[in-house]
């Protein structure tokens, strides 16, 4: 080879060739993400303090229910005081008030943002998303349920039901389901009520004080803070992915790319919707406790069985077995009787016919 391109010529040739490619006005999409990141990021080490505060709150939320939760029944201390979370009711901290679609993150899961005014989280490792601090900083999410069984005089059942309804309404709750049999020999009623969590213990105390005999009181609390935070984190992650796909979609040049990315957007949106439903359910369950009150004139069968001894229960079983067997025989005998009846009828008809035929032959 006895010819060569000089460095300057090569630089000029490649420069000219490169200049024919027009740089997109849009530039790197990173711009948008950086702007978002910059406006949401905490200055300096502020995020560390936020993360530490969030950790303390999570620990607190997990520890408190384990100390105060549980189930007990039919005693003066039947209802243990459940974890107090007054903010968990219908107040301003209700999850329904949370702004949506403001938690963003880059496709790599590194740039995190929250609603303006919320605590901020730092950039995380690729592929991971931390729960928004706002979700953790909110009060603990405890799903509370309870049942009370009351006994009253036969003529006082209706009045007792009215009193219970009044108590619940006064506490800001409502009756979600009710069943009553007031005109029978043994009137009874069952009310299922949704009560603000903050008023749950108070309502139970007032129901106990209505003057009826309290057969059993059962109160349970289930901490769903972790599930709630996890659901929120998943939603935030998926929303970030959706936003990323939308950015890609805006830059798609071919129909194939557009359809492909749109499909991904739809899939992610479907997952977001499903998780939003779960989150709303958890929020509803943790903001409104469920209390079921059963009123009757005698103790429920389950209570009677509990009070009886083993021999008595065995006798009951034997009696029940005998009755069931007899009922079974009677029930099955109907078909046999029908068969016998048909056979008898056929026999009579055959016999009469045989006699007539015989006379004619003779």
């Amino acid at each position, binding site marked *: *080879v*006895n*010819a*060569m*391109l*000089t*460095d300057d*010529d*090569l*630089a000029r*040739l*490649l*420069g*000219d*060739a*490169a*200049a*024919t*490619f*027009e*740089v*997109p006005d849009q*530039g*790197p*999409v*990173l*711009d948008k*993400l*950086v702007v978002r*990141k*910059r406006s949401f*990021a905490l200055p300096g080490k502020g995020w560390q303090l936020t993360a530490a505060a969030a950790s303390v709150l999570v620990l607190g939320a997990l520890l408190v229910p384990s100390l105060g939760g549980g189930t007990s029944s039919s005693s003066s201390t039947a209802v243990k005081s459940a974890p107090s979370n007054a903010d968990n009711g219908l107040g301003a901290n209700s999850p329904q008030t949370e702004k949506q679609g403001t938690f963003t993150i*880059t*496709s*790599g*899961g*590194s*740039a995190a943002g929250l609603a303006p005014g919320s605590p901020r989280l730092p950039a995380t490792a*690729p592929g991971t998303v931390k729960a928004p601090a706002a979700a953790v900083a909110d009060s603990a999410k405890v799903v509370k349920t309870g049942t009370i069984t009351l006994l009253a005089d036969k003529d006082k059942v209706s009045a007792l039901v009215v009193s219970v309804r009044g108590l619940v309404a006064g506490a800001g709750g409502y009756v979600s389901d009710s069943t009553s049999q007031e005109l029978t020999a043994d009137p009874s009623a069952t009310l299922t009520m949704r009560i603000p969590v903050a008023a749950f213990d108070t309502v139970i105390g007032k129901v106990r004080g209505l003057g009826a005999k309290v057969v059993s009181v059962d109160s349970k609390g289930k901490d769903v803070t972790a599930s709630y935070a996890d659901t929120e984190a998943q939603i935030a992650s998926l929303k970030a992915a959706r936003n990323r796909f939308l950015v890609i979609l805006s*830059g798609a*040049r071919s129909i194939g790319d557009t359809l492909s990315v749109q499909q991904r957007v739809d899939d992610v949106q479907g997952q977001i919707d499903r998780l939003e439903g779960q989150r709303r359910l958890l929020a509803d369950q943790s903001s409104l406790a469920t209390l079921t009150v059963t009123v009757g004139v005698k103790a429920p069968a389950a209570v009677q069985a509990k009070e009886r001894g083993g021999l008595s229960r065995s006798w009951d079983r034997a009696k029940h077995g005998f009755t069931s067997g007899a009922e079974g025989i009677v029930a099955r005998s109907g078909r046999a009787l029908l068969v016998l009846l048909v056979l008898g009828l056929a026999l009579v008809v055959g016999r009469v016919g045989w006699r007539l035929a015989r006379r004619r032959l003779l």
Partner: protein
Amino acid sequence: VDEIEQWLKRDYPTAYRTACLVLRDPIEAQDAVQEAFLRVWRFRDAIPAGDARKAWLYRVVVNACVSRIRSEKSRTGKDDGDLGLLTLPDASPSPHAAAEHAHLADDVVAALADLPESLRVPLVLRFYAGLSEKEIAVAIDRRPGTVKSRLYDARQRLALDPRLAAWVTPQEAAQ
């Protein structure tokens, strides 16, 4: 963060055109650089300080480009040399005043297209992106000696390309 943002913004046009020269397809190049920049942003904590970061950036860009070339190759079964010929930007005539210039640019792009990827990448990095041989070695993960050798080969091949004959200087004169 601001500093990294500014740096990425500043280097985007060069990185994009580098990818264009390597891939010879503006759309593919845009996607590759976008992917590379997001990758850089994601791992911004690992960006080396000082001069090394330019090589680091182009290493990510080159990887994204090479990944696309190989993906296209495996999808179509076409050799690297053929890829660009099918995906060359529209070579429709430019305005008359720039016709000659555009023609030359097309010739350069076509000549680059005939180079294998292993020679094209270091050549573009050296004479368009302005990386040193050492930085290219980092970018393509090869030894500086290999880079030097590839640059020499690439330069020789281009010198033999008839489309660039007018630019070729006799070796004695060049020396």
